[in-house]
Structures are given as structure tokens and as C-alpha cells.
């Protein structure tokens, strides 16, 4: 008689992983303008389920942020089932599993030497958060994944697919182009991003992403076992979980469970350690004499320690308290970088940096490719936070998408009317380069594009010398400060080569616009 055991739970787990990877990819693709200014889905749902994001952002902001309270669900489920999230849900973990066959591992592995790092990292992130140095975005698995996909992988995908099709379009005879364009259209509709975007910090993002995969060479799921602070948080919760794995006496010590375990969760005494086990259930399904079982029962004996020495913990805590202080005594605190234009609705700069989790969602959704990850413009702690680069893209007057995508409220969700009055910067004319001023050549491109209903850029006539030395009457642009919201379309469209003759710089004061 076939026992119930023959039903493979691990294939159910694989199905779940596949489901969440696909869901993740679909939500990523849906993080785009779709015909209306309202996003039809909660595309940021993974972040809102993430208790690490919730904990660190709320610690940093010192307020309850309702957006991320969904993560309570994950906390609750982890208290029941352990680190199931890492094994069944997390798309980064699933992608690592997917690439398992492609990355050959070293024989020895780390033998658990680095397992405590994730707890120390978690401690550091949370204390940093409390003392005002945002770190979570650089280590949260979803942040890393969405950011890498936005900045590098997605633009790369578009380029690598479109280039051969564009080449065929250019050189191939009609009958080939007809077929290739048909395929291309399908790909564009269902697989590719809408258009080719470009971003700053691509190489840096790619290196971080590849590093996580390269670490697979040391051992399977190196990231999840040793570094992932979300994994660390869930691991701590798992020590109280109800669902536990047991290896019974019937075990004949064949060690196949140990070999198959992707998390190295089985210790020398053949106990399944709850904070390591991600419930992939491979051991249960592979055990030849069915000695592995998972039950809703807590063991009577005490769990082995986490492996974090008191010294390391206290040291990390100390570093977490002290290091942020160094960031308070830099010149940046007195002199904000004027080129640092934040998305509309971004909260006060200091709070913004603490609340932004560097996920890149706003950069993904921005329809004009205006938002880019910053490098040191906001100091070292501002890396990967979004900034508007007007020369690459401008802020669409009728668009509020970035605020809708932001999972933590670092960018407020603005209604369109508010957004159109939100000042993110202000405009300056470089009269040494602006054509009507510098050369007496007519040009009104900035004025033409200015989107505020009463134009912030206006024209006035002036008598100037033209390039031939004749006096001509020409229209010169000037700014009505109180109308300008700093959208940057003027800088974007300025026909002067290289650096524009009209430049948008950050403006921090709140101003009331009269329209």
C-alpha cells in the first residue's frame, strides 16, 4: 500500500515558489503607467508584507506607518510555521534555488561560520534606523531585487531583445521583417518593458546583484543562511514557532537529509534547527525510511544558541549607536546639494532618507525616466535614493505615480491637484548660455513647454545685438518664481547643447502657489 507520505510536499513548495516569482515579476511589470494615472494593483505588496522594512522604517520614522502593517501577517505566520517565507515565498530565495544547477558549489562550504552575521546585520540595521542612519534598503532582499531589476536587468532585457529586431528591421527583406516585427510586437506587449530606459549606477547595482548569486559558489543559499537580515528577523521569530521538523529514531544515519538541506539546518545531533530550516521539506520527501516528519509540536529540550557571542552583539549595538553620529557632523547637514531634486511628495529630506528603502519602485514607474539613483549627492547614506535628473527626464505635470508606488510613504501619495502645486525645485536661467540673452538668437522652447496653467516662464522683448552685430528685438525668457514648481521640462527641452541654459535646482521652502 502506498502511504500518504508519497505525496511530495516539496513539489507543492516548488509550485508556491514559482507562483510567487511569477507574481513578483507580473507586479514588477505592472509598475508602469497603464492608461490612467491610477495604478490598478498594489504593485508594492511584497514590501508591505516585509517585517524588516516595517520594523526599521517605523524605528527610523518613530511613527506607525499603516502602509507596512500588512507585515504583521508574515510575523504571525512565521510564529506558526517558522521560516516558511524564505523557502516558499521569497522571490530572491527562489531565484537562487532556480540558479542552483548553474552555479557549482565548493565542497566544503562555510560550515556555518557566518550564520550569525545575519543577526548582527539585523542588529546594526535596526539600531542604525533608530539613530537615524538608513541601512535597510541596501540589505532588504526585495529592495535589492526590485532595484537591480529596475536599474539594470530590465533596461538590459529591452536592449538585448530589441537590438536584433531593430537590426532586422533595418536590413532584412520585407518578408523577414514582417515575421520579426510580429514577434517583436508580441514580446513588447507581454514580456518587455514599455521602452528603453537608462539609469545611473547601473554597474554598481549589477555588481551587488551578481555578488549575491556568486556567493552561491561557497554554499547553497549563502545569502539566506548568512546575510539576509529579513531572514535573520524571521529566524529569530522561528525560535518560537509551532511547526517543527523532527528526525525520529528510525533514522539509519544515511545523512541524505543533511546533504540535501539547502540551509544546513540539521545539526550534528540530527536536530532540525528551526531558525535555519526554511521548510523546503526536501529532507522529508527524500528520507528513505521516512524518519523525517514535521509536526505542530515544540520540542521539550532547549534550542542550541544562536551562535552570536555577547561580545559581537554588544560591539554591533555599540557601532549601531556610535556610527550614525559621525554622519551628523558632516558639511552636508549645513549645505544641501542643490542638484538633489527629490520626487514630488517626498517628505522632508532627513526623514525622507530614513524612510526611503531604496527599492527603486519610483524610478521604475516614472514614465519619463526622470528618477535616478543618487550616488553621493545626499551623502554616503543617500546612495540609491531617487533624484530627478531633468536633462534625462522631466516630472510629468499630470502624473502622481511615484507616490502611489512608494511602499513606505517616503514619497507621499498626492492627489493630482496637490501634486501640481508641489514645488520640487526652481528654475534659473544661465544668461551666458541662453540663446536670446547670450547670442541674440530667438528661442522660446522653455516657455512653450512650461506646464503650469499660468506659465512660470514668460517672455519679454529686449533690444540685443544678434550674431551679425545688428540690433534686433528679441523675446527673452524670465521666471515668475511663485508659479514655478521645478518640474524640469524646461531644462529637459532646452536646445542648448550639453548643459542646459535653464537649470532646475532644489528648493526646500514650502510656497503657496496662487493657482
Amino acid at each position: 500500500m502506498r502511504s500518504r507520505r508519497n505525496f511530495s510536499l516539496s513539489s507543492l513548495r516548488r509550485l508556491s515558489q514559482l507562483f510567487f516569482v511569477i507574481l513578483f515579476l507580473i507586479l514588477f511589470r505592472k509598475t508602469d503607467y497603464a492608461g490612467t494615472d491610477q495604478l490598478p494593483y498594489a504593485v508594492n505588496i511584497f514590501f508591505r508584507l516585509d517585517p524588516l522594512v516595517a520594523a526599521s522604517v517605523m524605528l527610523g520614522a518613530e511613527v506607525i506607518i499603516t502602509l507596512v502593517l500588512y507585515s504583521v501577517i508574515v510575523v504571525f505566520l512565521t510564529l506558526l510555521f517558522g521560516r516558511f517565507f524564505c523557502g516558499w515565498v521569497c522571490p530572491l530565495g527562489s531565484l537562487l534555488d532556480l540558479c542552483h544547477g548553474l552555479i557549482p558549489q565548493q565542497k566544503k562550504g562555510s560550515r556555518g561560520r557566518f550564520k550569525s552575521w545575519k543577526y548582527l546585520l539585523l542588529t546594526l540595521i535596526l539600531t542604525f534606523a533608530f539613530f537615524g542612519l538608513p541601512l535597510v534598503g541596501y540589505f532588504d532582499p526585495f529592495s535589492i531585487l526590485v532595484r537591480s531589476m529596475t536599474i539594470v536587468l530590465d533596461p538590459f532585457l529591452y536592449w538585448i531583445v530589441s537590438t536584433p529586431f531593430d537590426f532586422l528591421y533595418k536590413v532584412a527583406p520585407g518578408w523577414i521583417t514582417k515575421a520579426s516585427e510580429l514577434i517583436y510586437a508580441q514580446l513588447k506587449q507581454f514580456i518587455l518593458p514599455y521602452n528603453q530606459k537608462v539609469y545611473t549606477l547601473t554597474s554598481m547595482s549589477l555588481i551587488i546583484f551578481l555578488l549575491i548569486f556568486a556567493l552561491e559558489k561557497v554554499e547553497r543559499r549563502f545569502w539566506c543562511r548568512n546575510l539576509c537580515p529579513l531572514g535573520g528577523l524571521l529566524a529569530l521569530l522561528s525560535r518560537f514557532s509551532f511547526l517543527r521538523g523532527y528526525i525520529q529514531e528510525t533514522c539509519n544515519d544515511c545523512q541524505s537529509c543533511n546533504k540535501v538541506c539547502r540551509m544546513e539546518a540539521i545539526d550534528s545531533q540530527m536536530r532540525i534547527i528551526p531558525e535555519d530550516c526554511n521548510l523546503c521539506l526536501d529532507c522529508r520527501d527524500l528520507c528513505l525510511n521516512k524518519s523525517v516528519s514535521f509536526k505542530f509540536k515544540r520540542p521539550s529540550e532547549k534550542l542550541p544558541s544562536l551562535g552570536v557571542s555577547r561580545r559581537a552583539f554588544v560591539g554591533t549595538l555599540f557601532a549601531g549607536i556610535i556610527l550614525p553620529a559621525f554622519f551628523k557632523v558632516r558639511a552636508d547637514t549645513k549645505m544641501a546639494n542643490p542638484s538633489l531634486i527629490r520626487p514630488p511628495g517626498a517628505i522632508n529630506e532627513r526623514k525622507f532618507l530614513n524612510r526611503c528603502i531604496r527599492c527603486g519602485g519610483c524610478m521604475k514607474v516614472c514614465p519619463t525616466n526622470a528618477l535616478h539613483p543618487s550616488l553621493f549627492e545626499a551623502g554616503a547614506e543617500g546612495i540609491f535614493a531617487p533624484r530627478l535628473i531633468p536633462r534625462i527626464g522631466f516630472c510629468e505635470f499630470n502624473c502622481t505615480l511615484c507616490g502611489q508606488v512608494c511602499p513606505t510613504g517616503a514619497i507621499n501619495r498626492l492627489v493630482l491637484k496637490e501634486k501640481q502645486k508641489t514645488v520640487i525645485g526652481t528654475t534659473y536661467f544661465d544668461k551666458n548660455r541662453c540663446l536670446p540673452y547670450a547670442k541674440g538668437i530667438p528661442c522660446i522652447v522653455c516657455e512653450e513647454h512650461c506646464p503650469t496653467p499660468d506659465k512660470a516662464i514668460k517672455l519679454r522683448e529686449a533690444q540685443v545685438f544678434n550674431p551679425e552685430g545688428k540690433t534686433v528685438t528679441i523675446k527673452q525668457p524670465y521666471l515668475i518664481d511663485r508659479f514655478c514648481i521645478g518640474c524640469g521640462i524646461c531644462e529637459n527641452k532646452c536646445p542648448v547643447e550639453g548643459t542646459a541654459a535653464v537649470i532646475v535646482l532644489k528648493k526646500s521652502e514650502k510656497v503657496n502657489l496662487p493657482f
Partner: protein
Amino acid sequence: MDRREFLKKLGRWTGSISFSLPILQQVVPSAKAEVRTTLLSCAEGKDYSTLVSKVLDPLGGITALVKKDERVVIKPNIAWDRTPEQGANTHPEIVKSLVAICLEAGASQVMVFDRPVNEERRCYATSGIKAAVESLGDRRVSCPYIDQRKFIPVRIDKGKSITEWEFYKDALEADCYINVPVAKQHGSIGLSLGLKNIMGVIGGRRGFIHLSLAQRIADLNTVIKPRLTLIDATRIIFRNGPSGGSLNDVKVINTLIASRDTVAADAYTTTLFQMAPEAIDSTIAAYQLGLGEMDLKKIKIIRV
């Protein structure tokens, strides 16, 4: 295949492909000027679905303009992420009824497109034009976004200020090109009318055109000669154009102007803004290039 042979083959392929590329970037000579009749028609009415055929009647109706099985390109203004009420784009109902009568006239294909200033999807959606055109549900009609690969360099022999520029292939190849601009104020040339609408079918950095806007617009207009220019003056932006945004700057005058002569259409429409045709430099420049008539006395104006 050994390595040496592989490299040789690779070299040959790369070489031949790269040498063949320049041949494909053909330069299309500009089309010859057509004989024009300076007939202009002007209609007023609140029912936009019938207003288009009404204004075309004095010109012989649509059948005089669109022949059976012709590939028609309709070029409205879809430049801005603005609603129809804001008047920065051609009114969707006007475009829709124009497409409809072209189909009735037996057009084999009707394409509606523009190269927008704001994000293209936003412009096509907010202007209402994509939805209006697609609501006709006819397979011959399409409202595609601009495909950057379709811009091809064209020599502008008659150009005084520019001699070559990229034009959109579909616009060049159309059997019948219909120009459907919206009339509005413009900071540089005074008004943005029929001639200015050509800016939506050219590639490259359009800011460059502005450095001598009036002359360059006229130069560009020597390349594509619309069979018909239908100026939408149902709503005119008289201030803060060409993007507008405030309903206070829009006047609803429910008027359409139609002519085979773009210069004539522009010249007449200028009077609706209480200005003389000579106030608009692009009209003068185009007139001087022989693109049409701007003397209102020489234009036969029929009001319907």
C-alpha cells in the same frame, strides 16, 4: 570549421553588413508642388460629428479629397498631456468624424499619429484621441505611437534655413495626408496653426527648429504637402499657449477652417484671433516660399 576559418567568416560578414548599411539610409527627394486652388471654407456649429463634413462640402466633400483605396494619414495635434476641454490638442470628436468620413470615402487605411511632447501614452490617452479613433472599431484605422526607427532623413531642396531633416516614413508615404491642427497662441511665432503642425512628423531635436522657427517651419512644409488642412478652432487657446492648461485661457468658438492651401488656412484663422495674417512670421515665410496664398483678398472664403 576551425578557428581561423571562423574568424575569416566573421570578418567577411561583419564587413559586408557594415558596408551595406549606408545604402539603406536613403535620402528621399522632396515631393513636387501640387497645383492649389485657393478655396477656403469655414463652418461653425456645436455638433462636431457633422461639422467636419459640413466644412468640407464647399471643397467638394470628402470624396473630392480622399480617393478610394488610398492610404490616408491624419495628423492631429496630440502633443500635450491635456484634456480636450483645455484645447491644447485637436478635439477628439473632430478627429473621429474626419476618420469616419475618410473610411466612408473608401480609404484602404487610415493612420492617426503625432510625435508628442509629453509622455506619448499620456498624450494619446488624455487627449481622448486614441480612444475616439479606436471606438470606430474599424480594422483599417490605427492610432499608433511613433516608432523611432521610422524617421528617415529627407533633403529639403527649397529650404532657406535647413537643408535636411528627419521625417516620419508613414507621413511621407501616405497617398493622402490630412493636416488637422488646433489653433492656439504660441510664444514665438504668435500662433500655432497648420504650418506649425508639421513639427509632429519630424524627428531629431526639435528644439533646434525653434532657433529660427518661422523660416524653418516653412522649410519643413516644402516636404509634405497636405491634401487638406483642417484647422480645429472649436476651442482656441488665446493666452499661455501652446500647452495651455487653464480653461480661463480657452475660448470656445466651435469653428472649423478647411482648405487645400495650408498658408491660406493659417492666414484666415489668424483673423479669428483678431490679428492680421502678416502678424504670423511662419505664414509670411511659407508664402514667400510659394507654399500658398496669404492675401485674404485672393482667397475665396465660403462660410457655411
